């Protein structure tokens, strides 16, 4: 069962600076939630907090719970801007990284499943290559397979495609939308187009301390093509919202 995630009264401070306080965010079950906002507002910090990755220098507390009452940190998979592939492992070994990091039965079944997924994303001939031999897009595809292999209902993605060129990014957006369909996905992006292509709900984070504001809800199937009429309007709306968000001064030491 795919859970919804509720974040209530989230507080995060780094030293003297409060990044956000009393932040509320709901991630509806099985939907993609896009989070936009100016650089440095705290999007990554929020995502990392949900992922359980706060550092010792950060003070944080929040009530984060899943609608199925299971622990949140056991239900999430994380995908970062960089592929995080281990250079001493092959593509296949990277895809089944969970076998090394946890005790798993049915190793051969997992390996078979990973091989099938890697074929599905077009990496049939790359199974035994090493990350250094792949392009950025190929590596991020391996990361996508690794994320899928974790079999978690909630996916947290921090600008997963921003380091790629436009065409590769476009293709990977479609791939991700297809493979991670019906999961609860929170993804951070700097690109309003990406949010419009993939999200069912779009939030903008702004201010200091930061708050999140819902700016759009789309119900049509993803990945959307940017020629859809409602998207043209929403594009303009998003740009306006982002411009307004960027003009709110951020106090930075």
């Amino acid at each position, binding site marked *: 069962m795919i859970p919804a995630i509720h974040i209530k009264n989230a507080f995060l401070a780094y030293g003297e600076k409060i990044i956000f306080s009393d932040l509320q965010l709901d991630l509806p079950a099985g939907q993609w939630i896009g989070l936009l906002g100016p650089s440095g507002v705290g999007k990554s910090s929020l995502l*990392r907090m949900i*992922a*359980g*990755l706060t550092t010792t220098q950060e003070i944080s507390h929040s009530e984060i719970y899943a609608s199925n009452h299971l622990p949140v*940190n*056991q239900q*999430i*998979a*994380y995908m*970062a801007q*960089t592929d*995080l592939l*281990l*250079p*001493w492992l092959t593509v296949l070994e990277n895809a089944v*990284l*969970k076998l*090394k*990091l*946890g005790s798993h039965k049915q190793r051969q079944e997992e390996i078979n499943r990973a091989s099938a997924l890697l074929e599905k994303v077009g990496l049939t001939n790359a199974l*035994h*290559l*090493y990350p*250094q*031999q792949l392009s950025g897009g190929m590596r991020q595809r391996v990361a996508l397979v690794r994320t899928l292999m*974790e079999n978690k209902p909630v996916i*947290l993605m921090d600008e997963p495609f921003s380091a790629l060129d436009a065409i590769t990014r476009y293709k990977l957006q479609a791939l991700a939308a297809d493979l991670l369909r019906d999961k609860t996905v929170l993804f951070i992006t700097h690109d309003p187009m990406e949010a419009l292509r993939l999200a069912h709900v779009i939030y903008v984070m702004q201010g200091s301390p930061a708050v999140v504001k819902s700016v759009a809800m789309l119900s049509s199937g993803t990945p959307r093509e940017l020629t859809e009429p409602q998207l043209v309007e929403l594009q303009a709306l998003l740009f306006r919202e982002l411009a307004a968000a960027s003009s709110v001064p951020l106090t930075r030491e």
Partner: protein
Amino acid sequence: MLNHPKNKFLHFHYLAFIVQFSRSLIIFAGLLLIWQSIILFWHLPDYILPSPSHVFSTLYHQRNLIAIQTLPTLIETLLGFTLGIVFGCLAALFLAFFRPLAHWLLPTLIISQAIPTFAIAPLFVIWLGYGMASKILTAVLMIFFPITIAFYDGLCHTYAGWLDLARTMQAKKWRIFWHIRIPAALPRLASGIRIAAVAAPLGAVIGEWVGASRGLGYLMLNANARMQIDMMFAALIVIIMLALILYFSIDKLLRLLIWWE
């Protein structure tokens, strides 16, 4: 299989090895030339600086003696090198896994390095006798610290992204240590091992200088006492050769095993 990066590195490296070796030979020949020129230019007598031809002639005529004395030094070097790496790695692993202890143990380690080798080597001879043990220990002492620090540094500075990923995958601390932190630290360990490869022969020879009955260091000391400077140089050249061969072999082995950087 041909696509395997290990193979690519191998092919590249055989060529590079030949190039590197030829370069070393050219440098060596150049140094010999400079050596000979210094003698000619300043009219240095034989007991100050023997000529290359004299040294190589001694090296050839005394080859049996030198060969016999090379063996103990070689064994001391290799054992010191291996043990130094083993202990250095174990110390680094221990310090990195039990971080709070590092605050106490690291200063102790630094103190052990602050003691000049020449000052402590005679103590080893008193404690362990004239045999190989004291020389091996001297070599271990010289290389232990660079290895520990290099490996420890690598273990403490694992790329944060990988650690984040592992944390989200709920991996246990020892699994992260074994599968991510240790492999990630191997390139830094390799740097430490390269330093150790040049320092180990030095350690063995210093150990011999302060008290030995065999070895190239002992040979040098003996020759010095008898004003046989050519023999001293001959022994010195063999020591240098030992260090170079050890360094280049270890370097090649490390590039094979730790090929991803």
